[in-house]
């Protein structure tokens, strides 16, 4: 049974985070670690203007990558999980590809897809794709043949099986995979956005602020990216709580 984060524990975590940050700023006492008292107001101001646009650009990239990955990986994972023969055929290939850090293909994707948002989104989508593929496949293969048979005996044909068995079985798996991979997705986004674009938090942090030594501004970007990761994680968690209620009982 999973543990659910409560409002109170989230709040406590946030307070501790800012306290530690403030403590660190006091101890180090150099421009590279400004106090949150300075950064947070700047961040709030920035989010209403330029920084907000960078934030939206990054968020749009991650979300479209998630959408693309789900659309391709979930059906394929289901198919592999329910067709052991097919899985035996392509399983070894997936086992090799899965642990390879996909970001090393960044230059290849840039050359193939051009210097556009499409190439950045594709890179992130590929990373999430494999996570979802593997988790959904394992979930689908754990659906016992007896379960499928007995639902069939209630009159279910292919369409009803999909609607009442495969879809609800794979949704929690997709969410689990996303919860695990969304951090990696944001990390890769950070790297992908450092070049060949004029929008996005990665670009803002590295090119617009870090390289011109605007440290407090740089921290507003860091906060933005951190917030993006946290928001995605909590959003997935919230959906999980609704969809996979049976995992949180007892």
């Amino acid at each position, binding site marked *: 049974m999973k543990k659910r984060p409560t409002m109170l524990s989230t709040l406590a975590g946030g307070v501790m985070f800012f306290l530690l940050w403030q403590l660190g700023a006091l101890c180090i006492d150099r421009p590279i670690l400004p106090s949150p008292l300075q950064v947070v107001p700047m961040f709030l101001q920035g989010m209403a203007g330029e920084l907000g646009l960078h934030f939206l650009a990054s968020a749009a990239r991650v979300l479209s990558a998630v959408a693309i990955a789900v659309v391709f990986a979930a059906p394929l994972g289901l198919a592999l999980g329910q067709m052991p023969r097919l899985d035996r055929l392509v399983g070894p290939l997936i086992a090799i590809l899965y642990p390879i850090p996909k970001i090393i293909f960044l230059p290849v994707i840039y050359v193939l897809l051009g210097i556009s948002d499409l190439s950045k989104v594709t890179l992130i989508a590929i990373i999430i794709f494999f996570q979802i593929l593997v988790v959904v496949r394992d979930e689908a293969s754990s659906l*016992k043949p*007896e*379960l499928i*048979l*007995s*639902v*069939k*005996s*209630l*009159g*279910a*044909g292919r*369409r*009803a099986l999909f*609607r*009442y*068995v495969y879809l*609800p*079985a794979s949704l*929690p798996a997709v969410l689990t995979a996303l919860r695990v991979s969304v951090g990696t997705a944001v990390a890769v986004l950070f790297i992908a956005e450092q070049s060949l674009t004029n929008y996005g938090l990665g670009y803002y942090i590295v090119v617009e602020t870090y390289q011109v030594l605007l440290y407090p501004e740089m921290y507003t970007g860091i906060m933005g990216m951190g917030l993006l990761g946290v928001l995605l994680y909590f959003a997935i968690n919230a959906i999980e709580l609704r969809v*996979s*209620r*049976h995992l949180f*009982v*007892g």
Partner: protein
Amino acid sequence: MIRLNRLSFAYGGRTPLFADFSLVVGKGEAWTVIGPSGCGKSTLLFLIAGLTAASGGEVSINGERVVRARPSTGLVLQDHGLLPWATVRDNTRLGLTIRRFYGPDGKHSPAGQGADPARGEKLVQYWLDWLGIAHLQEMYPAQLSRGQRQRAALARTLVLEPDLLLMDEPFSALDAPIREDLQKVMNAFHRESGLTSLTVTHDIEEAMVLGEKILVLASGCNRQPLVVTNHLFAGGVRREDDDYVRLCGRLRELLSSTDGSRG
């Protein structure tokens, strides 16, 4: 009710389990099927359920040839087959939900039986009550004991008002006292409903308790059905009865002799 006409079946390349096998099960009869593991008793059940296709001959129910899962055949397996993400009530309702999904098309749900949601809900409640699991209806299968899960699986099947109930080792995974409880429940159910039923089991006692006719299958190829009439069934089976012990002994003998014919 069920007519097997010169049925043949073999799993790809292996010795056939059935060849020219014919059998008639009358309406309202309670049958059990017993035999050593691998003798084809589950296969026979799946053939009747229309989930496995025969390689020769045919299965017909009420004069109609079975070519796919029949909407009014109820099937309960050893593994309860409940959806882990749905509550007991939603699981019990699943068959009705699927029927509503397709509409009365005669293929997935009985033709001409329009969905009446209120009536469906009443049936769900009735069977949850009857099987003594109404208080668990908001729980998920993982929160239930094995016996309770099997009761939920039964409720789910009975809600669809089947005219034939097929059960494959329904109580084998249960502890003895819970198994005996459920056997009593099924006995009471049969007396109340008179539903035709066929239960596969490997347990001689269960075969005696649940079947007025006991089909004994052999390992290897089955050609002639070997049927034992259980005259104790009508009066309720008492395990300490002399007759009961004698009949058990006879079944045991039959089973060991058929097991010897393995070729």
